[in-house]
């Protein structure tokens, strides 16, 4: 079987910095985004005007934050399908808080939104780790439960932008050096979570769990606690997205955020996060989110029928999965041939 030749022939890849940069999982999605922007700009130069870029960033912000949160959960080989419902609950809560106490400092509103999101995420994480039922099933149930709560609470009630302080709405209008404030928030989130995942022990544990949960257990990693952490982080970020949603969009009500979860899953997968966990990065997920929202604007700018948009997103998801699959098949083949020659 394997002999010392296998050791000697161990590939010494990763030495060349350019080559290793090109092998990053974020490269395909980032390239796709660049190509998309260039093509659209050639066809319609207004696409990259100051206003055009600002619109692109604003549109992407909420999806980016949610993709970062859900990406963290997917890295552990779990999923949270209830994020659309969580966003809806938090957005409606934000409207309610402003209606009840119009003069409340905006910071408190953010804290309330983050707290609600964290609690809802913690409930999901707790159920997933205690019941040992696949998170797909648990959070599918929670999707309906949270949505039901939102329906019961809101009824026909809706809150509109006019019900909220002007300063709150300006968050998604004002810019610093041309970048909207809420986009800056999103970028900060991406950087913080990316550093957490890449450079801290608990962050790396999440990858280990997603890669092989049983091995992680044998290695003494506190699997349940870490998974709950990922769900809480996701809930918190979704809560943040919910507050920002209330700032950016005119109305919040019982159906806010319905169906959003699949867009977020799509963003994470297109961004290179493996759906079965263990690899990918939240930077990729964020780029995936930007790509998906940009496609919408791009198709409008190109004058393509809007109905094509969803089909194109579908093709992107399949492409992302295909790229992954081909890469792993090629890797397996390389391994087989190298073992055969060493046999």
């Amino acid at each position, binding site marked *: *079987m*394997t*002999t*010392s030749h*296998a*050791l*000697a022939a*161990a*590939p*010494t*890849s*990763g030495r060349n910095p350019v080559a*290793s940069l090109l092998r990053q999982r974020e490269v395909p999605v980032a390239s796709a985004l660049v190509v998309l922007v260039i093509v659209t700009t050639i066809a319609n130069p207004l696409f990259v005007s100051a206003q055009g870029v600002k619109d692109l960033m604003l549109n992407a912000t909420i999806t980016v934050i949610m993709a970062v949160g859900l990406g963290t959960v997917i890295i552990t080989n779990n999923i949270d399908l209830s994020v659309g419902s969580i966003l809806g609950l938090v957005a409606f809560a934000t409207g309610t808080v402003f209606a009840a106490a119009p003069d409340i400092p905006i910071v408190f509103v953010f804290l309330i939104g983050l707290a609600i999101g964290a609690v809802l995420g913690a409930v999901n994480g707790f159920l997933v780790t205690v019941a040992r039922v696949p998170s797909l099933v648990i959070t599918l149930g929670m999707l309906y439960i949270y949505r039901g709560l939102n329906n019961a609470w809101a009824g026909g009630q809706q809150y509109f932008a006019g019900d909220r302080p002007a300063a709150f709405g300006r968050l998604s209008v004002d810019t610093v050096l041309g970048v909207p404030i809420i986009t800056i928030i999103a970028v900060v989130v991406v950087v913080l979570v990316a*550093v957490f995942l*890449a*450079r*801290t*022990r608990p962050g*790396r*544990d999440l*990858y*280990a769990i*997603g*890669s*092989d949960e*049983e*091995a*992680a*257990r*044998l*290695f*003494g*990693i*506190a699997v349940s606690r870490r998974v709950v952490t990922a769900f809480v982080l996701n809930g918190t970020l979704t809560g943040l997205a919910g507050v920002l949603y209330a700032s950016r969009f005119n109305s919040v009500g019982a159906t806010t955020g319905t169906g959003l979860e699949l867009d977020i899953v799509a963003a994470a997968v297109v961004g290179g996060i*493996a759906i079965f*966990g*263990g*690899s990918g990065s939240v930077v990729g997920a964020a780029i995936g989110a930007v790509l998906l929202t940009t496609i919408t604007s791009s198709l409008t700018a190109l004058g393509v029928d809007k109905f094509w948009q969803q089909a194109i997103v579908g093709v992107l998801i399949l492409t992302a999965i295909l790229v992954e699959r081909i890469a792993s098949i090629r*890797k*397996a083949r*390389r*391994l087989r041939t190298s*073992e*055969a020659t*060493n*046999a």
Partner: protein
Amino acid sequence: MSIDPTPGGLSPTAPVLELRGARKTFGAVVALASGSVQLRAGEINALVGENGAGKSTMVKILAGVHQPDSGEFLFDGHPIVFRTPAESKAAGVSVIYQEPTLFPDLTVAENIFVGRQPTSRLGFIDRAKMRADARALFARLGVPIDPDRVAEGLSIADQQIIEIAKAISLDAKVLIMDEPTAALSGVEVERLFGVARALRDRGSAIMFISHRFDEVFGLSDRITVMRDGAFISEHATGDVTTAEIVRAMVGRDVDQLFPKQEARIGEPVVTVEGLTRQGVFHDVSFEVRAGEIVGLAGLVGAGRTEVARALFGIDRYDAGSVTVNGKPLARRDPMAAITAGIGFVPEDRRKQGLVMDMSVSRNTTLTLRRTLSRFGLVSARREREAAADWSQRLQVKTGSQELAVATLSGGNQQKVVLAKWLATDPTFLIVDEPTRGIDVGTKSEVHRLISDLAGRGIAVLMISSELPEVLGMADRVLVMHEGRLTATLDRADATAERVMHAATGSDAADLTEATQAAPAASPTNPTTPPTATAEATR
């Protein structure tokens, strides 16, 4: 180096870690009846025993994966139970499992340091240091593995090296190695032993599990023998011979358990010639005659199941031929195998032999769907009747034919699998580990059934890792070692010692060589079992 005996027999130091009479059951199955072992600082204790002797269960108790139901567990003289692997690790116990447990998506360096990566002052992981530390470890082990590559796609040997690097970097007080050498070649084994000796000399307590006697005698200071989930004996390595160890491992009353009936042996039903699959098994030839039970013995991983699967058409083979009742059998076509009269009772009945959530009757008639159906639809009534008939013949104990198979005991589940195949009226039946995980009482019933089948003229190939089962049941015993047939023994000549020697690839002559020099890269293939077992080692 094993030749110099341990001075004064038992060493005076108190054990770092000790199990006394540990018991562990899973449902009705007793995995460990009374496990005892003492690990002392600066000593390598080799744990030997047949498959199923309880070695791995004991490892898992020491590792904190399982908790003993009863018995004493002492660490540094104080009673302790590790409730989680983390607790065991925190106490300084490091385990290298039989199957490497790496994270395929993480880099090699991270696999070594996960959970305890070196960090900078701010608490962030210092990747440069992690990489450098990994490189230093590999330099010490003398292997050129790139710390930056992901673990996915590494050869088993490389994976095992990474596990070893991990254990070394932990500076473990207690190092447990559960068959670490199964996938390693001679050079790598020597390297591993060098590391193990260095750790021992620095005061670690080491437990080493292996089926290769040359390794056991070459490395250990002390040998602990287990059998049937219980501690049998402990020996200073220098004071004992291979023959004595083998006898302690297998010594048990074989004849009573297995009511072998004499059957008239007829014409060859199946002839296998030169069956080869690159890297898995080589040039395997044998025949099985009507009414004959042929036992296929060997260690786990010797390639026995792989041969059976290739024969039955589940897996491909590169060369050779299979003939059934005089006609060549198509490759890679299980349907053709069934039509030709072959039945296959797989090793893992829960995953491969039964649909656990379906009823007893459904499972029994799974192989019969075509004969039971009319116009493409399965008739429920005929299904029930056929199932009831077979269950009765095999005495399956179930409350109702409609209960899910999962509710039956292991032995009765196995009977359902047998019933399923018998219903196809086979002329040749392959049974892979027919009594694994079945309690002793039902075991003999399964044996009676198999023996009964042979009595009716069915040719049986029985793969089993349990020596007494093979010796008690088989008319002829084939032994495989590392993908090759190393011995064919008639019932009269088949003794536990002979089978064990052929299965471990160590005849007596080998053993002396191995203890004096580094083992060669590939083991010799002894075609005849050794006749002189005892004297060569002393």
